[in-house]
């Protein structure tokens, strides 16, 4: 070792240099330079990111990185958010917690997304990691407030507890009182997903009162409006705040109390919550609006005029989440008032209704793309679109990095010309050279995929539904999109040919999801047989795929690269195609 080091820096120096390199991609690159750098880097990596919990085993991670302090794991595929992944598919965190509990007494941070977390795992976390600081559970499920109570009671150094979008078995709100009276280190608390009706407000108030470093507090719907003033009074230093239900009988004393308390929150930059909002109480937040950079009104069922008033008070807004009640008129005001806007998400207020209930069309998106020069990330639900509008949007805003358009009715054509929207989306990928994420909708032929394959060279994630005519569409994407990591497809006529012709591409990606497409069981078997570093999972409710003819399409298919081999925690409706499947099942 010393011989090699003669012309290089000592380990300690390299370690110090590496400590400035935080991003995983860069650290991975560093570790590939040479053997000694690999060794040094692995001993000093403090944060590990595992994008697919089945791509690698806990033992492998622990073996390579003996001293990490923070781990981030992701489980179920993205389409699980829309009920396409059946309950029980997998994504269990317990094997990870169990392995780490033994190996890492000094683990400080756990961040999980779309994983199944049990109370037992929470208890194990609380017991095993003495310096545990951060628990972020995003879209997770499987645990109850009992597990949270143990975390609250045992983790003396807990700084962050964030349960965004989780499904929690809400047995009792009293878990909050399990934070000891001596506990004061909370910096961030997000309990917006909890539902319990009876909430322990006094415990919450006392907790907020004694945690003077609290910067983020996101309450759940059960917290009534008249309690907010008291809570905020204890925490004027908050930077991010999420209200509970924002409705009450209109009373001047409650209003002025609330307005007064908001005025004293000089650091507030982000607001959310606003369930059941009553417009009369909205002006109470005006004192903080000029400093707001982020506003989440996606639960606020208020109409366009009130939304317009609110948005006009927020010139520094960078991020807005809102329902389509804002309408085209509101988006035009947004475009003229909020020149710093970077991210916009417009959600449908009535997604399952047959007819439009609001006047929100492609015009709103055109206006924002024209008026907001920094806009880079869009999620937009609407009911009509035209190629003309999409081309205009693309030309206006070549700096888009994320463009997700959902035209609510599948296969909707250009409303002006009745043509497919191929040209429109083609313009998006052609002009927006840095586009990393794209979601398609509307009537689309194979042509749009040709555009995507040709132009979307930086595209990392693509979501497709009810689109395309043939395997050619899929082939364009798999053969053309060099940076593609995640591809999710539903209800498209893509079959075996493109998949098999591009099998090697799948190893360069994190994962591919295909449901209600035309991939046969035979093709799945072949893929599983020939590609040992891919896990090819067939998910089918109708029973074992070999109980039907081989050329029968499978219901759902999930393919991901893995060095851990096939998993063993599959439920009865998931089959992994492996090397033996060809021999066993034929």
């Amino acid at each position, binding site marked *: 070792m010393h011989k090699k080091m003669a012309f290089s820096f000592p380990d300690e120096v390299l370690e110090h240099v590496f400590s400035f390199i935080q991003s995983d991609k860069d650290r991975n690159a560093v570790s590939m330079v040479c053997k000694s750098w690999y060794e040094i880097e692995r001993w000093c990596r403090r944060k590990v990111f595992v994008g697919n919990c089945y791509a690698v085993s806990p033992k492998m991670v622990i073996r390579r990185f003996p001293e990490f302090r923070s781990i981030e794991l992701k489980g179920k595929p993205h389409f699980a958010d829309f009920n*396409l992944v059946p309950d029980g598919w997998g994504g269990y965190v317990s094997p990870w917690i169990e392995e780490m509990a033994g190996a890492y007494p000094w683990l400080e941070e756990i961040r999980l997304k779309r994983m199944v977390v049990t109370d037992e795992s929470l208890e194990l976390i609380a017991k095993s990691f003495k310096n545990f600081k951060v628990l972020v559970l995003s879209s997770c499920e499987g645990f109850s407030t009992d597990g949270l109570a143990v975390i609250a009671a045992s983790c003396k150094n807990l700084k962050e507890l964030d349960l965004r979008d989780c499904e929690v078995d809400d047995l009792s709100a009293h878990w909050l009182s399990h934070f000891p009276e001596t506990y004061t280190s909370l910096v961030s608390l997000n309990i917006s997903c909890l539902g319990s009706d009876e909430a322990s407000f006094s415990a919450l108030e006392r907790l907020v009162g004694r945690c003077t470093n609290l910067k983020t507090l996101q309450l759940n719907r059960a917290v009534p409006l008249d309690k907010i003033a008291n809570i905020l009074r204890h925490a004027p230093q908050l930077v991010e705040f999420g209200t509970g239900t924002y409705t009450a009988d209109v009373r001047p004393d409650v209003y002025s109390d609330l307005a007064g308390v908001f005025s004293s929150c000089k650091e507030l930059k982000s607001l959310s919550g606003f369930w059941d909002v009553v417009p009369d109480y909205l002006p109470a937040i005006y004192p903080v609006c000029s400093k707001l950079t982020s506003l989440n009104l996606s639960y606020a069922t208020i109409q366009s005029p009130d939304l317009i008033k609110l948005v006009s008070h927020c010139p520094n807004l960078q991020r807005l989440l809102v329902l389509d009640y804002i309408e085209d008129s509101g988006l035009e005001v947004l475009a003229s008032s909020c020149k710093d806007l970077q991210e916009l998400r417009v*959600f449908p207020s009535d997604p399952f209704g047959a007819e439009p209930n609001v006047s929100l069309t492609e015009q709103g998106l055109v206006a924002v793309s024209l008026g907001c020069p920094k806009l880079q990330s869009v999620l937009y639900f609407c009911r009509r679109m035209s190629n003309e509008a999409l081309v205009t949007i693309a030309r206006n805003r070549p700096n888009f990095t994320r463009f997700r358009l959902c035209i609510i009715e599948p296969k909707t054509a250009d409303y002006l010309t009745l043509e497919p929207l191929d040209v429109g989306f083609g313009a998006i990928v052609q002009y927006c050279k840095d586009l990393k994420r794209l979601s398609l909708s509307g009537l689309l032929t194979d042509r749009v995929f040709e555009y995507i394959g040709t132009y979307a060279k930086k595209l990392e994630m693509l979501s497709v539904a009810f689109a395309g005519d043939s395997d050619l569409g899929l082939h364009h994407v798999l053969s053309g999109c060099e940076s593609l990591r995640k591809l999710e497809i539903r209800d498209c006529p893509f079959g075996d040919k493109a998949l098999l*012709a*591009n099998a090697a591409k799948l190893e360069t990606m994190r994962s591919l999801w295909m449901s209600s497409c*035309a991939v046969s069981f035979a093709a799945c078997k072949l893929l599983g047989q020939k590609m040992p570093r891919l896990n090819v999972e067939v998910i089918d409710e109708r029973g074992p795929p070999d109980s039907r003819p081989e*050329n029968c399409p499978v219901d759902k298919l999930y393919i991901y690269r893995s060095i851990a081999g096939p998993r063993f925690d599959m439920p009865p409706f998931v089959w992994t195609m492996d090397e033996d499947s060809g021999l066993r099942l034929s």
Partner: protein
Amino acid sequence: MSSENGKRLLETDAGGLNFEATELTLGLPGEPRVTSDGGAKLGSKRGFSETVDLKLGDNNREVKLGHSLQEAAKSPVSKTQVVGWPPVRGFAKRGKKSCKYVKVAVDGAPYLRKVDLEIYNSYQQLLTSLEDMFSCFTIRNYLNEKKIDQVNGIEYMPTYEDKDGDWMLVGDVPWQMFVESCKRLRLMKSSEAVGLGLTTGPKYSSTN
């Protein structure tokens, strides 16, 4: 252009598996999975006062509708729900007083689904949606007392567990009351339901 690409697809690529050697075909049994008029089907409104034939064959996802469909229900109708579309998360929580997600189990089906009862306005809507979700199964519609052809499958009875933990037949109580008290749904095989004595009441006639 397309012929060139077509040729490329069939060549043995360094990155691909020789497709021709596998002799796989793309012929699908029965009807194609993706209907080309998907839009039309999804957009069609249903009349709830119609007798809706609830039987669905194996691959046949079409539901036979009454002729007077166009004159149908005056009340606003929710679209037939395609699972997971539009892609809104926990939609029910947005702008609604409550959301009522309950698990739905079907005897013999390997996995559960979840439905949000709050988005339906009537039993008919709920049952229709369940049919779409579990299209392999035949769900008995007690509402119109129609005997359902058993050609393709076993009959299922929609039952639910209420707040007191009792298993009840879906449809016995007014809709809102059902939504409030339902904890989970189970589509039970009719034969089992008979055994549990759920086939009582004037509205329901036993299949046996």
